[in-house]
């Protein structure tokens, strides 16, 4: 039962995390790469299984922290020692110990903003429309069901082949994901 118009992928639904992870591992072993697992709570094994190990969020965080720190200190230094140096109770113009708290706060702020928005960006969110939502039962993905979706972009993907492969992983049900 192949259809003319292209599809996003083939999706299998599982009842428990264990099945999902095994299916994912099998798919990976079968050479599938373009696929994704969906679970109602973080499932490290699944991520491992589909071959997603490291991510660049920590790097983004570090950059944010650096920018915040340098920016914060530079601002204070420029303001207090260069732009309008003022004698405040006989303290030095460049009273670095007094500049530390603000520098620190700026670093934290930069890091946090970078982390959160970096994470969202890397995840490509916001993305309120996504093909997987076309699968009616996918609403369960945020409750108690577990899904594995092999995407049509995958070179090894062929609707019939993949469906057969997935059905071999004794899922609760396999369905086609239209665009």
């Amino acid at each position: 039962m192949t259809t003319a118009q292209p599809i996003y992928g083939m999706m299998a639904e599982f009842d428990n995390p264990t099945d999902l992870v095994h299916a994912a591992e099998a798919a990976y072993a079968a050479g599938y790469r373009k696929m994704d697992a969906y679970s109602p709570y973080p499932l490290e094994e699944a991520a491992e299984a589909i071959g997603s190990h490291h991510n660049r969020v920590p790097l983004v965080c570090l950059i944010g922290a650096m920018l915040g720190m340098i920016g914060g200190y530079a601002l204070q230094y420029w303001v207090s020692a260069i732009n309008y140096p003022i004698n405040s109770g006989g303290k030095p113009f460049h009273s670095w110990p007094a500049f530390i708290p603000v520098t620190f706060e700026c670093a934290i702020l930069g890091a946090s903003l970078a982390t959160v928005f970096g994470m969202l960006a890397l995840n490509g969110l916001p993305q309120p429309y996504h093909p997987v939502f076309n699968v009616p039962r996918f609403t369960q993905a945020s409750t108690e069901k577990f899904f594995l979706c092999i995407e049509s972009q995958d070179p090894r993907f062929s609707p019939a082949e993949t469906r057969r492969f997935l059905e071999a992983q004794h899922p609760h049900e396999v369905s086609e994901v239209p665009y």
Partner: protein
Amino acid sequence: MAQIFHRSANTLARASILGVVLLLSAVGAALMQLQRSPYVTNQHIAPDQPVPFSHQHHVAGLGLDCRYCHTSVEESSFAGIPPTKTCINCHAQLWTSAQLLEPVRYSFRTGKSLEWSRVHDLPDYVYFNHSIHIAKGVGCFSCHGAVDQMPLMYAENSLQMEWCLNCHREPEKFLRPREEVFNMTYQQPDRHHPVTFEGKQYLSQIDLGQVLREKYHLRTPQDITSCSTCHR
């Protein structure tokens, strides 16, 4: 149908986030500009006056010296607004029937003051002293602009603190010889218009300014950017 959003929602969502960021920064920038705009500073706006007095005519045209009217500029904080008597000195003979000058004659007849609107109006907590600026070689032009080119009086500069600081931080960029203070046509020295001061020729304002700073014993920028210089 499980989808609750249309495809376009993705683009929309991302665009709107971008939009909010842009909007906020735009508003910020606008406010920064507003606080410096003529709307706030009244810069370049000539207010209505009882008599459309033309500095251009009296200064450039007739060549009156500033001090003829602003008598106390050299010895007081306040430059002085000429009493009606001063106008009448000449206008007893000239334009005696001009309708424009009726308010002046009325004032003189009745002893009621002319009610000018202030053009250069500093906030009340700023204490500016004309005499000391004159004494240190700051030309009228530096703050009031080309008054001799103003048919109607308006403020050339914003008179905001950051503007004052320009000169209080680097006076040498603006100083001129004392004898040139009231000279509206004076030009700062550059390669083409050298200025001679005490027999020496200067080709750049900075050089001249440095010399004048020494000569007129200007206090250091530190001194004249101390708060109590202007605020009490």
